[in-house]
């Protein structure tokens, strides 16, 4: 027992932190599974389990852009949207040709991630040359464009191949027996419900490990160097554009994974669900959990997904609370009054003072 304990202590700090984080997720997963099997979990909570996972993935991946790269993206839901549509589209056209659900769903996830990542690269090339505030507006613009275009997009498929239209179903000119897959504002319906809690947890852990390993590597240092001081980063030869696009596209691809999970959880996916409000919701998770703090993002995402369903107060005033969270967190972190207050009232100091007093009292005794 003691030797094992010592071994854990020997590991470096970040590895230990990751073991604790992944361990906690696994323990929470085990408790949930036990409760489900024992019939102790309410239907309400069971319906939220997958949502917690995809919101967790969204929060961790947005944190890569906001907390690690230091750029505000307001279009993160747009990447989720691309992943959701691409994954659902793939599953629907392959549903009769690929019988193996595991392979099909894995491919759907990979294709959804790749497509969202591709858009991330394209958008990244465009926006990452811009200054911070412009970047926020342009990512917002991209999110809205993606939403608006998908809202009027019709895609059908028959023996001659895939057909597109921006007008209506009829103008797709499908053959007899052809299938309309994307129906404009109605989106895609009837996607196989392959997303399970287990898959969700696995994807959440993978997402976390991808980002945390990236952060603690050569590329991660380059990304954080750009965040902390881009002029100094250039002066030591770090290619700013390359690493900005790398971070942005990995973040987008993982949002795509969350999207695939989403569309295979509720069977119907509509582009209007991925607007500005969803992007802000994810931003609230990141801000509340702490910018740059990946574990915090997951905890905030899970709490803010579950709490509104249980607390009536939180349900009615949810959006208002989110707004206040954004303002209060920023002022508390950055306003000079609170910076000083925190210096004078740090928990660590208070704890140390108490400890000192105890030691002193013991010595005197």
């Amino acid at each position, binding site marked *: 027992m003691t030797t094992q304990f010592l071994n854990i202590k020997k590991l470096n700090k970040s590895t230990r932190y990751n073991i604790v984080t992944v361990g906690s997720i696994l323990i929470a997963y085990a408790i949930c599974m036990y409760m489900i099997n024992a019939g102790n979990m309410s239907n309400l909570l069971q319906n939220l389990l997958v949502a917690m996972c995809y919101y967790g993935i969204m929060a961790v991946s947005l944190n890569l852009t*906001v907390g690690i790269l*230091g*750029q*505000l993206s*307001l279009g993160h839901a747009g990447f989720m949207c691309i992943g959701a549509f691409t994954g659902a589209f793939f599953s629907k056209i392959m549903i009769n040709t690929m019988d193996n659900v595991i392979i099909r769903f894995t491919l759907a996830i990979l294709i959804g991630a790749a497509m969202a990542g591709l858009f991330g690269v394209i958008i990244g090339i*465009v926006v990452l*040359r*811009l200054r*911070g*505030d*412009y970047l*926020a*507006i*342009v990512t*917002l*613009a*991209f999110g*809205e*464009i993606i939403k*608006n*275009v998908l*809202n*009027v997009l019709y895609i059908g498929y028959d023996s001659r191949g895939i057909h597109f239209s*921006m007008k209506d179903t009829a103008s797709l000119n499908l053959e007899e027996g052809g299938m309309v897959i994307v129906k404009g504002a109605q989106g895609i319906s009837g996607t196989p419900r392959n997303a399970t809690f287990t898959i969700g947890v696995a994807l959440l852990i993978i997402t976390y490990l991808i980002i945390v390993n990236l952060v603690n590597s050569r590329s991660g240092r380059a990304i954080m160097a750009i965040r902390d001081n881009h*002029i100094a980063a250039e002066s030591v030869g770090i290619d700013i554009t390359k690493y900005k696009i790398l971070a942005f596209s990995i973040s987008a691809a993982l949002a795509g994974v969350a999207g695939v999970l989403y569309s295979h959880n509720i069977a119907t996916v509509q582009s209007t669900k991925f607007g*500005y409000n969803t992007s*802000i919701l994810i*931003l609230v998770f990141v*801000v509340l959990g702490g*910018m740059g703090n990946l574990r915090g993002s997951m905890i905030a995402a899970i709490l803010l997904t579950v709490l509104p369903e249980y607390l009536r107060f939180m349900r009615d*005033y949810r*959006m*208002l609370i*989110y*707004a*206040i*969270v*954004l*303002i209060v967190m*920023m*002022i508390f*972190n*950055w*306003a*000079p*009054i609170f910076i000083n207050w925190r210096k004078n009232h740090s928990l660590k100091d208070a704890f140390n003072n108490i400890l000192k007093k105890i030691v002193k009292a013991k010595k005197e005794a």
Partner: protein
Amino acid sequence: MSFITYLLNGISLGSVYSIIALGYTMVYGIAKMLNFAHGDVIMIGGYIIFTIMSTVGLNPILAVLISIILCTLLGITIERIAYKPLRRAPSLAVLITAIGVSYLLQNLALLIFGAEAKSFTSVIPVKPISLAGGRLTISGETLITIPLCVLIMTVLTIFIKKSKTGRGMIAVSEDKEAAVLMGINVNKTIAITFAIGSALAAVASALMFSTYTNLSSTSGAMPGIKAFVAAVFGGIGSIPGAMIGGILLGVIEILSRAYISTQLGDAIVFLILIIVLLVKPTGILGKKIQEKV
């Protein structure tokens, strides 16, 4: 004739964008921040006029004046509570706060006035005129909006060039530290900038909702973002730029809705923003900002 009607509607909408864009461009120039909540002040202005007219039944002009006063106070309050403590914070923190304020205003309005959209009654007392034997009609709103926009631009330009406060604004926008050394009260200057911007937002709201009568908690957000696009288009920090950008954007939006696609109007506006930022990031009349090393 329909093309001329669209063009006039476009210039009219563009004039409203110009007035809103002024608020963005002045605040951006002086406080170096993107006031995300600016569009939502428009929405609040709309609700104030609506409430006064529908409950007290006051004269529309008086209602607009009260709305201007209340929006000005709102702008100053927002600046004082949310932005002033963050003067030295990184721009990311300020931007997130501004988004928070925007979201707060939207959701307060939602709680107070409900989710159902209200129908705004026009405050413009001018009757439409008919030209070319009744084939071309120009609405009273258009007749008022365009000249009013020109008037506001002129007055504001003169104010900034000639008055002491105005020149203080230019000084703060050029170099904050130097302005302090010259004895300019930076906090006061920034507060005045927010006050002017918010008062203009109230004017814009009266004009906009008189034409586009649908009033809901989110009806300020989109025009706000588009006006920011207009400000970037014309060159952020430039007053004539805001006017040119606003009018061009209004015309492009109305024409593309008429001739390309109704549903993709917003997408086209955003596409223009992206193209402008790629081709000429400083906008039509903007200056290049060099970072000090």
